[in-house]
C-alpha cells in the first residue's frame, strides 16, 4: 500500500476514528492526537493492512484499543466537556438554547455510561455499523453486544425522562 492508497483508505475512516476517540477520550485535543497516533500505527502496518479481512474494522479496533490504553495510562487527566455546535437556523433562540441544552444533556448522560457502553452506542447509533462489524471492532460476541447496547439505551432513556419530569414539575 503506497502513500496515496493509504490516504484513500484513511479518508472515509478518519471522521469515524476521530468521533470514536472523542467519545472515549472526551477531550477533543486528546482525540485529535489519538487519531493521529493511530494513523501512524496503521501507516507502519500498511504492508499488512490488506491481509485483514476487514481493514476498516481493523482500523477502528486499533483506534478503540489505543484510546482505551490511553485511558488506562491515565495520560488523559484533563477531562473536558465536549462542546459541539448544535445549530438549527430555523428555530428561535429560545428553542435553540433548549435544543442545545437537551443535546448537551444527552452528551453528559452518555459520558456517564461505562466505556464499553459508550463504544457500542458510538459504533451502532452514531456510526450505524452492522453488528457483525461491531463484533470485530469491539472484540465481543453479537449477543453480548445486543444485551449491552439494550442496557445502555435504556439507561439513556431513563436519564432523559428524569430530566423531562424535573423540567415539567
Amino acid at each position, binding site marked *: 500500500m503506497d502513500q496515496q492508497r493509504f490516504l484513500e483508505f484513511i479518508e472515509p475512516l478518519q471522521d469515524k476514528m476521530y468521533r470514536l476517540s472523542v467519545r472515549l477520550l472526551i477531550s477533543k485535543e486528546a482525540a485529535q492526537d489519538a487519531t493521529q497516533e493511530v*494513523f501512524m500505527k496503521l501507516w507502519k502496518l500498511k504492508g499488512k493492512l490488506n491481509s485483514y479481512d476487514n481493514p476498516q474494522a481493523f482500523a477502528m479496533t486499533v483506534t478503540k484499543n489505543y484510546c482505551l490504553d490511553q485511558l488506562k495510562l491515565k495520560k488523559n487527566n484533563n477531562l473536558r466537556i465536549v462542546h459541539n455546535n448544535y445549530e438549527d437556523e430555523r428555530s428561535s433562540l429560545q428553542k435553540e438554547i433548549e435544543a442545545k441544552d437537551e443535546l448537551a444533556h444527552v452528551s453528559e448522560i452518555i459520558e456517564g455510561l461505562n466505556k464499553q457502553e459508550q463504544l457500542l452506542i458510538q459504533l451502532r447509533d452514531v456510526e450505524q455499523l452492522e453488528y457483525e462489524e461491531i463484533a470485530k471492532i469491539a472484540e465481543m460476541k453479537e449477543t453480548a453486544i445486543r444485551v449491552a447496547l439494550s442496557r445502555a439505551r435504556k439507561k439513556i432513556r431513563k436519564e432523559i425522562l428524569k430530566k423531562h419530569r424535573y423540567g415539567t414539575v
Partner: protein
Amino acid sequence: MERSKIKPLLTKYLEGETSLSEEKILNEYFASGKVDPTFEEYKPLFNFFEEQRKTAFEGEVNLPEKKSTFLNKKYYRWSAIAASVLIVCSVYFFNQKQTKIKSTEVNHELAMKHTQDLLYMMTNVMNDGKKQLQYLNEFNTTQNQIIQQK
C-alpha cells in the same frame, strides 16, 4: 409516520433488536420534527446521534514518517548507485595508475644509467672545483709565515 408503527420499533430498539434499516426509519422520524409527544424523550437522543455524525476530523493526516521513509528509500537507492559508480571509477583509476607505474618500471634500468651518469658528471665537476680550491692553501702558508714572524 404513524405512532402505531414507531412504537413497536422503539421497543425493539430498546431491546437492541432493531436492524440498521429500522433504525434509519427511527432516525428519519425523529429528524422530521413531527414527533408524537409520547415519544418526546427519544427526540434528544436521536438528534444527538444525528449531530454526532456531523463531527469531522479537522486535523490533517500527518504522516511525517511517510515522507522520511519515502525519501530514505530514494536516498538509499541513489546512494547505492553513487557508491557503485564510485567503485567502478576508482577501480578504473587504480588500474590506470598501475599501468603508469609499470611503464616507468620498464625504463628503470635506463633511468638508473642516466642517474649514474649524472652522478659521475657531478663528482667530476666537484673534483675539478676542489682542485681549483688548492690555491686557497697559499693563504694558509702566508698566514703561517706572518704568525711565525711574530
